[in-house]
């Protein structure tokens, strides 16, 4: 079906984008690749009167690197990441995650920033970026601020961003060449949103280790307990241990979900720790 009528603007300055967002009460939405908003517009579940296209804003389609970080503009598409345009902050992980999102035709338009802001619990980047300890740079009325991924997603479709803020950059710390990662998602069909996601990143050089579970119904769940156990032993924790951690997580997870998450975790960590 046709979406409800909307007007659209494509500002080329952040000030203009912000002015458009402040213009009216919730009738305005940002649009990036439109691959999450589009289905909602077509179903008329979302009926914004105004859309503000972020793709022409300065820097949003840029990829930059410094000695310590890789910075990805919010409007960089999944396909560009899949194709290796982004320098690796950790060998191969970004390309792997990008290539598992939806289908190539969706990845050609969908963007990393749109995905993070949409905050779907089953989306890939929210979990992967939490595991990588990324920081999001957002621009609001009072200037730029940084939000660490660990506190960014508040729940399904809810983030720590204010209504008039625009995500501009995703900043990912670089890992050493000894770093290991694993990422595994369980889906019923290729390209569908995941039933369970597990991500693992460990770097002896910076003594960092993160274990993150995604598709838990809300924000990704970070387990410092499992991270410590794996870092100090170098062994994959038994599935029952992982299940116990998930059961005690305070998240109200079903037995099926706990099983799926624990299996995804085993596969991700086994892959990461294998020397083959």
């Amino acid at each position: 079906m046709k979406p409800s009528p909307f007007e659209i603007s494509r500002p080329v300055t952040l000030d203009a984008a912000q002015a458009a967002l402040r213009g009216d009460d919730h009738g305005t939405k940002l649009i990036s690749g439109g691959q999450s908003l589009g289905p909602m517009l077509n179903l008329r579940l979302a009926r914004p009167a105004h859309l503000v296209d972020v793709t022409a804003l300065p820097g949003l389609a840029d990829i930059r690197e410094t000695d310590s970080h890789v910075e990805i503009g919010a409007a960089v598409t999944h396909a560009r990441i899949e194709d290796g345009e982004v320098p690796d902050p950790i060998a191969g992980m970004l390309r792997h995650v990008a290539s598992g999102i939806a289908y190539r035709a969706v990845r050609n338009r969908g963007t990393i920033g749109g995905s993070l802001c949409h905050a779907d619990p089953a989306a890939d980047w929210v979990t992967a970026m939490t595991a990588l300890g990324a920081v999001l740079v957002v621009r609001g009325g009072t200037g730029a601020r940084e939000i660490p991924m660990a506190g960014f997603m508040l729940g399904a479709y809810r983030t720590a961003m204010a209504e008039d803020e625009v995500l501009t950059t995703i900043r990912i710390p670089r890992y050493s060449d000894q770093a290991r990662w694993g990422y595994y998602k369980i889906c019923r069909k290729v390209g569908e949103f995941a039933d369970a996601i597990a991500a693992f990143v460990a770097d002896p050089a910076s003594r960092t280790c993160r274990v993150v579970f995604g598709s838990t119904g809300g924000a990704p769940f970070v387990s410092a307990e499992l991270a410590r156990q794996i870092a100090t032993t170098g062994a994959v924790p038994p599935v029952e241990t992982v299940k116990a951690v998930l059961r005690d997580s305070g998240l109200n997870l079903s037995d099926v979900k706990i099983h799926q998450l624990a299996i995804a975790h085993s596969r991700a960590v086994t892959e990461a720790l294998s020397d083959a």
Partner: protein
Amino acid sequence: MPETLTLTVNGEDCTVTVPPRTQLAEVLRDHLDLTGTHLACEQGVCGACTVMMNGRPVRSCITYAHACDGAVIETIEGHRGDPVMDQLRDAFSRHHALQCGFCTPGMLATARDIVTRFDVADEATIRHELSGNLCRCTGYVGIVGAISEVIAAKGATSAPPAPARDTKPFAPFEPVETAAAPTPTAPQGSVSIEGGWTVVKRSFALSHAPDSVWQLFRDPARVAPCIPGATVESLDAESFTGAVEIRFGPIRARFGGRGSYDNDDAARAGTIRGEGDDKQGKSKVRGALRYAIAEGTTPQVSRAEVELRFEIDGMLAQFNRPELVTGFVDYILAQFAANCDAVLSGGEAGPARRLSVLGMLWSVLKARFSR
């Protein structure tokens, strides 16, 4: 306000003037009479509408007019003089890779992209890459066969080597502690699907004694303002009319409707039933909310047990993702519980009450994503 776009379609320059909400698929089908591009799901899932835009496949159902200004588009009617597409068309017909043909325009766009990106691809890779194009007729065997043949004709003999891995064994280390993320405190309960109904059971604490909580729960005029997004229009001893407004991410819906309620003071339990519809969004919801108030961990506090069952029809129901419902219900319940506590302490329901909601009387609502 209509916008004028200039684009190159199948090698010809075109100018169309369309409202901003126009999908690329409609630009092609309704304004340029190129009806070979098919629309089915309009949610990006089925792939029928896939066309080439600036050399890459895109979903024309979720690509809107503004993104197409200046674009170079190739549809099934085009690809003239493109040797890869000629080979694919020939191979599709020899392999019986189409029956009704509905999926074929999208299949060929994706097939062309696979052939371009892969010099070598086994069957598993092709099927993986093809997973975003659904075919109800062929069973895919002929489609996969046709694509394999065209890739094989490229003559590459081996795939590029996989990147080398670090083979040093993992050396255990003592991680530096990062501050633990705050533990979420989700209310306890369960979610199940019974026939077309989604049933969410939850239990949560309120920091007032059961009697005063019950006085609040049994009085719809007092409890309704605690429900985020709900407004009561009329109310008598057993029925009400009202509305509930839902905001969930980009989703907005306003369900207007009617319902009934009854309370059992002795058991401190009651039921609210309601149904309503969201006219603009063309969704309907029916639901019942059962609630019971018991003493909590001390006589000064209470525990509310609630069971929400709902069924949703229409557009919202197409979002078939039960875990989103759960997250949403829990968010609303947390606000509701905070509002109840505020009202019982003599204050008012907070500003969050506009946010979302459960529905009619909570209930209702949310349903959406039921299965």
